[in-house]
């Protein structure tokens, strides 16, 4: 069985929001309808987004680290938002595991957004239906696009390659290898939702060097470097030259 998902590498994400704007650009022009905004150029702009980048500061000054944290629908393998939908508008595709909303069936009751612990669903304030990341389902299967472009818009936009896309059920896929070898983890594992999207943690590369590797204990040059020192009772050069 296929489960398409994103793997987000927090180690290389620089928080540039390119995935956010690229997602909005692609999906607002899509066949499923626009993603509406309120006051886009006004004082308090707000609108519908499938993907948002948040920033967290870890630790206390001066030992702090900034983590940029992109979050979209995690396409859970056991999605709590799907069974609660009264109309069946919210569903998980059997063939590739993408969780989608049928905008023609959604009654806008917001119950699915209550049932998502990640806050991944947002109601469109003008179209009055629930919206969420589609994993660019209208793009990844599009035969008209060259094969390298059959990926979600956010993945293509990422300048640091922090977003990987693939089948997490295929053990040899790029995403599975990354999860396995680089410590990929899921968000809020305590609720048993089994999110398909994984995150790769911040990783530090450290070289372990002992002091004697930097400075040889038996270095013969050390002997030659011994500087002549006057005895304690002998006058130093300073004593001689100061009047």
């Amino acid at each position, binding site marked *: 069985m296929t489960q398409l998902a994103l793997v987000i590498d927090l180690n290389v994400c620089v928080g540039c929001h390119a995935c956010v704007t690229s997602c909005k650009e692609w999906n607002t022009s899509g066949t499923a309808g626009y993603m509406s905004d309120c006051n886009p150029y006004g004082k308090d702009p707000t609108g519908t987004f499938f993907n*948002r980048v948040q920033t967290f500061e870890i630790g206390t000054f001066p030992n702090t680290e900034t983590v940029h944290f992109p979050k979209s629908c995690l396409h859970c393998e056991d999605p709590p938002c799907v069974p609660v939908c009264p*109309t069946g508008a919210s569903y998980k595709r059997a063939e590739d595991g993408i969780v989608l909303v049928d905008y023609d069936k959604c*009654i806008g009751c917001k119950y699915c957004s209550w049932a998502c612990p990640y806050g991944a669903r947002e*109601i469109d304030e003008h179209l009055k239906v629930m919206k969420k990341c589609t994993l660019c389902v209208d793009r990844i299967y599009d035969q008209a696009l060259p094969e390298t472009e059959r990926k979600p818009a956010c993945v293509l936009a990422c300048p640091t390659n922090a977003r990987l896309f693939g089948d997490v059920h295929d053990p040899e896929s790029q995403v599975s290898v990354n999860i396995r070898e680089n410590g990929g983890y899921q968000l809020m594992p*305590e*609720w048993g939702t089994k999110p398909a999207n994984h995150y790769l943690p911040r990783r530090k590369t450290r070289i372990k060097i002992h002091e004697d590797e930097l400075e040889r204990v038996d270095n013969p040059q050390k002997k030659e470097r011994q500087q002549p020192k006057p005895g304690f009772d002998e006058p130093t050069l300073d004593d001689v030259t100061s009047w």
Partner: protein
Amino acid sequence: MHPAFSVIFLTTLIGVGQGLFLALFTGHLYSAVNVVPMQADPQTFYGLGSLLALLFLGGGLLASFFHLGHPERGWRAIARWRTSWLSREVIALPAFMGALAVYGLVQYLGWYPVLFNLGPILVTPGLVIGALATVLAFVLFICTGMIYACIKFLQEWATPLTVVNYTLLGSASGFTLTTAFAAVYAPELVRFYGAWSIIITVFALFTRAASLIRNARIKHKSTTQTAIGVRHTHVAQKAQGAMGGSFNTREFFHGKSAGFLKSIKWIFLTLVFPAPVLLLSLGLSSAAFAILALAFIVQYLGLLAERWFFFAQANHPQNLYYQTI
């Protein structure tokens, strides 16, 4: 959570409607086994009483449409009754209203043919339909409560106490209204209904207090650390991904101070429990409609506050991603 007034009115109004019917049918059943005297004018009492209950249920149904983005597609909500408690509620509410309407009509028209004898009880169509409507009323209470209780990560709601409280608070307000209603149409039943109203209200106080105590001691499973997967005791959010707010900052926060929340708690604890009990005891001794009606109004206003608090108190785990509201 952000308390939506559509849902507050829906749950409180249908609670009154269900409680009112349960009170009417309790009186009907008791008089069928001769525990309480038969009403002087059962046709008007049960017929008008059922109509009143239908008005409350209809009001609740109307309020629910204001919660929907697309009310014209509301009929689709019956589709997923196998998995969704909301879908089950959407089916249970009209089913109960239908049974209630038939019950009220049978009573109002005075259609009392004896279908069969159950010992000394003469079973009339009203009793059969009333029993069915009683089952549906409880099914509706369970559906309404489970909508909230089934979301396991909303830990303030995920307890059987949620269903118990919806049932008892709805019944209490319905019985109190019936007491006032009986003061006009069946004065001989005022003491009977008044006593039941006080008993149910006191029971509801125990279960609601139990849920308040439970929620005060609750330990949330999700933390900022599990939300973003970074193990450090000090994690501070610096940016939420949007400057002008988003659906996530509007839907999941009540936007009021802790002091406001606390005052609402004491307001509802006063208005729902001791105030109506006091007014009921006063009204029972004199069987005064005005005092009994005031008891219901006070309790209903208290229930609006109670429901507001119920929503505001629930802390959604998604709020961990929005800490700088």
